[in-house]
């Protein structure tokens, strides 16, 4: 199996329920081996996108390729290689953990039972405990264990840490990173918790209801954006050279967040770096763009 450069590729992917488009014009590429963050406001279609990637729903427009295949048309070529944890990590509440493992063993062609048992043991979860008796963080870990025991090439997580307290979240992400450290795994996870994403992810996709607004390696995104501070003025001259993502004016001062198309030389402005959280928040705060925003961050 030749390695693909992109674990996931979508082209103008869209999904419609009746007249309502849950996802629209989504084009992205997730590099193999990356840990990619999927961020966006509620209603942008993050969950729909992730569901499209694992074949839970079918595209109404465009197409998606996961590990080289369309997940809805070739489920048996995709599902065994993809681990998925849905929002709120659904598990069968009455099952014991040993029975959850039996489920995984029977419903999967590729299943590493030893890995699952070892992982649960390391987490301190006895096999005869029922799912309903576990805390939220423990349930999330069990769901992750089930996904990892498939030895997947791609892991798709829908807000995996959303309902977890900070400690459980840290443990979950640490556990996830251990799995990534073992190698051969691409991760796509959606989350609202931006601080977590900056630690854990190396790629970002920012999705809004009009499509993908921003995508690329996080390092390059951070390097490409700058905060300009200066006396109150019209940003038109700056806007000619760079994309102004956000502008704030006070009585005496103007602050701009720009995506610089080239190095920013301007004597009027004080130029500073900006962290990922600020960048993402600025994009989330954008109104609907009049023209499609250039997608890829140039390296």
């Amino acid at each position, binding site marked *: 199996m030749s390695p693909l450069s992109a674990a996931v590729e979508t082209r103008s992917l869209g999904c419609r329920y009746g007249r309502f488009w849950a996802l629209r014009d989504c084009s992205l590429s997730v590099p193999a081996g990356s840990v990619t963050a999927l961020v966006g406001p509620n209603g942008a279609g993050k969950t*729909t996108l992730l*569901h499209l990637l*694992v*074949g*839970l*729903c*079918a595209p109404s427009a465009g197409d998606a390729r996961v590990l080289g295949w369309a997940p809805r048309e070739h*489920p*048996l070529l995709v*599902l*065994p290689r*993809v681990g*998925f944890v*849905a929002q*709120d990590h*659904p*598990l*069968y*509440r*009455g*099952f014991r953990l040993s*029975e959850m493992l*039996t*489920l*995984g063993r*029977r*419903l*999967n*062609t*590729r299943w590493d039972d030893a890995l699952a048992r070892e992982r649960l043991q390391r987490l301190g979860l006895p096999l005869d405990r029922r799912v309903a008796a576990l805390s939220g963080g423990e349930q999330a870990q069990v*769901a992750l264990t*089930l996904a990892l025991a*498939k030895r997947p090439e791609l892991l798709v997580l829908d807000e995996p840490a959303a309902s977890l307290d900070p400690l459980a979240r840290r443990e979950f992400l640490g556990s996830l990173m251990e799995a990534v450290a073992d190698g051969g795994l691409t991760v796509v996870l959606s989350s609202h918790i931006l601080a977590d994403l900056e630690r854990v992810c190396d790629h970002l996709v920012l999705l809004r209801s009009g499509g993908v607004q921003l995508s690329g390696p996080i390092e390059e995104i951070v390097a490409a954006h700058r905060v300009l501070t200066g006396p109150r003025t019209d940003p038109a001259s700056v806007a000619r050279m760079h994309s102004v993502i956000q502008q704030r004016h006070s009585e005496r001062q103007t602050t701009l967040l720009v995506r610089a198309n080239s190095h920013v030389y301007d004597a009027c402005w004080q130029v500073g770096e900006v962290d990922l959280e600020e960048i993402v928040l600025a994009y989330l705060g954008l109104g609907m763009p009049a023209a499609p925003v250039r997608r890829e961050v140039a390296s």
Partner: protein
Amino acid sequence: MIWLTWRQQRTETLIAVALLVALAAVLIPTGLHVASVYDQARIGSCLAQDTAGCPDALGAFENRFEGLLGLVTWFTLLPGILAILIAAPFAIELEQGTFRLAWTQSITRRRWLTTKLVLIAAGALLAALIMSLLLTWWRTPFDQLGNRFDTGFESEGIVPLGYTVFAAALVIALGAVLRRTAPAIGLALIGFIVARVVIGGFLRPHYLAPLSATWSGDPATTGPDLRTAWLIRQDLSDAHGNAVHNLPSIADACGSDLAAKFGDASCLAQHGVFNHAIYHPASRFWLFQGIEAAIFLGLALALGAFAVWWIRDRVS
């Protein structure tokens, strides 16, 4: 997948088994008792030969077990209860979202759906079969007395199988659309009751055109066997079954009481008035069973097909 379905249904299946065991525990001892009383009082020979003292014996037998028969008639709700037990885990899975776990292992949605629906249908049929066998056996003495179409139709034979599968299909279809278990079960129960009332009450008499018979005097000697038949209507008519115009005056002339319907037969006959009945003979029992079962099975299949389409296309 079979293991998973069984494991998910385990609790509900055991409850259903317990219900059936309880049913047997009630029906078998009482059924044996009724049968032995039937034999001792020689009801069977009474019905065949109508010796003197038979009407009393029959009356006594009926009075003695009136309460018990009434109680057992309530068991006609069992198909609904069993169906809900068997189909509820399916609705729960759709409500709690655990289907997203099952559909993203390594099996196709089609295999998941097929396995589940086949096993649910098989379970429903099996439970209904056991229930029907028990009740049909229990009711044998009463069926001889002539209650088969009346209180027995819905509890005996293959009709309960149709009811049970239909109710299960209702729970499944409603669970798929509503994605909430409690309303699905509630609405399914309502739909189940409405369907049975409408079909049993309004359609069943018309499965076949009923027979019409006229006679004079006691039907046991000159008329049709109405004891075991399903009587739709009984009145006085002319020789062809049509209404008689001046019936009240004729009745007065013959000194008959219209309400009694068995007046002075020869006098009435002279005036062209006969006893008249519209009925379905006992021989039609199994035909009607087949038709009603087929109707409910057909409805179940339609609901099942709808549920399959909905789940394949509209659930994610």
